[in-house]
């Protein structure tokens, strides 16, 4: 439901969703997946690699088993559990983050390849209060369980950026066209890399439309 008066939805859900996605760190201690890191034998020296990258504006340097994905580094090594592990095989989009400003599946990105990269997660979207995309998802109630929401929001942010750069999609009637209308079909296609098993798609489309509209204005 839209909140035309600008008021945010109920405090409980708001705190829940901001707690898991926007702030994240607050619930790191009780995050089940982060608490049950898979046990791996200590890697040989040649299988350990040092990598330096920027995470949400802060420089990080970490020595890692070469097998570690960006998703696991975030959740298990760097205390950023806002990025979610859904399928862990590039099929659901729950792990979507921005690397050098572009959305990627962090579950399929080996952390050793990140040397010099800039990574933005749901925790780093905004320095002051919720990002407009987070606000839109709250206002439109664009989630049910909320697990896919951080990935949906990261995709939404990237979608608006890609659209403003004039990038076409599979449903764009003429890929050669200079101007593309951001129809609901375009939004659905451009968000299709993020699966929502609760099926909150109707409200997600509305939230994305709000964000794209507001940023154009």
């Amino acid at each position: 439901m839209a909140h035309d008066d600008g008021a945010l939805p109920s405090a409980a859900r708001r705190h829940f969703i901001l707690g898991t996605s926007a702030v994240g760190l607050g619930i790191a201690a009780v995050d089940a997946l982060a608490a049950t890191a898979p046990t791996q034998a200590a890697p040989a020296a040649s299988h350990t690699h040092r990598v330096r990258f920027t995470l949400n504006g802060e420089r990080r340097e970490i020595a890692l088993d070469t097998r570690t994905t960006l998703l696991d580094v975030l959740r298990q090594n760097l205390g950023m559990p806002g990025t979610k592990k859904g399928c862990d095989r590039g099929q659901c989009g729950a792990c979507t983050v921005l690397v050098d400003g572009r959305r990627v599946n962090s579950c399929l990105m080996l952390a050793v390849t990140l040397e010099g990269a800039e990574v933005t997660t749901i925790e780093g979207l905004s320095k002051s209060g919720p990002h407009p995309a987070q606000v839109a998802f709250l206002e439109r109630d664009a989630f049910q369980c909320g697990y896919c929401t951080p990935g949906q929001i990261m995709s939404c942010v990237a979608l608006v950026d890609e659209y403003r750069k004039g990038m076409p999609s599979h449903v764009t009637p003429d890929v050669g066209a200079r101007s593309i209308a951001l129809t609901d079909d375009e939004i659905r296609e451009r968000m299709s890399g993020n699966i929502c098993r609760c099926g909150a798609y109707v409200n997600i489309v509305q939230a994305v439309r709000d964000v794209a509209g507001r940023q154009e204005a």
Partner: protein
Amino acid sequence: MRAFDYTEARSVDEALAAIGPDAKFLAGGTNLVDLMKGDVEQPMKLIGINSLKLTDIAPTASGGVRIGAMVRNSDCAAHPLIRERYPLLSQALLAGASPQLRNMASMGGNLLQRTRCYYFYDAAFDRCNKRKPGSGCAAREGFNRIHAILGASEQCVATHPSDMAVAMAALDAVVEVRGRDGERRIPMAEFHRLPGDTPQRDTTLEPGELIVAIELPAASGLAQRSQYLKVRDRASYAFALVSVACALEMDGGAVKDARLALGGVAHKPWRALDAERGLVGSKLDAAAIDRAAQACVAGAQPLQDNAFKVELAKRTVARALRTVGGVA
């Protein structure tokens, strides 16, 4: 996942010097890392090639376009030269995977995607000649709805999963590769192979060779008048059951030149040369379209669960021809 060493190559020469029998090049990783998670691929060493400066899309002297192997799928699809001159390629790229995966996947890597045959992709299955040569093919007697109807062998009925490669085949692209012994150019028609008795080999790439670019020949009227039509189980983010890359050059009401390539039906992008020849010089009427559709599936040998693909392929070809040819 098995433990492995990692080195980042700073140049093509460095990459070629570092590659060896148990090593693999790592580009976007969207397929390789996934396969490593499932223990289907178990390299001892990865050579990272994401820093290689193979990221240009530039016109060639002969009027074509050369696409660097490390250009990301999304960047190629959105590039003005590709959108203007080869919309078929943009369409095919945009029909594949998801925006996130297209941002990661490289052009070279897309060509080297492995099949999504369930029995290949899940190492829990004992029999797969592609994964374990000589072990048999579980798909032949298994659930084979997504498998090949053309060009398969007793040993393997897998299909090639790429959309991009189907458009590349229709456009007569050439794959530029480099090895320690130098460079060679492989036409798309010869790049992917049929399974025969050696289904473990997807392509004619030799061990240690690296794809450095893909070259498209000069765009003719063909490339402009084209469509990539993909049929799948859901509207987006799914592999093709059947796809068709169709391009036509018309001379009045008659077909001057035609290209038809099918995806989802064989171990490689299936160029339907007989169907193309049959169209040239004829009026694009219902009978000609029907003949072309029939020719595309000539020799089809469906399995237990995929006979529907024969009819689906014919109808997809017919619809693409009608759309591209502008006939109702």
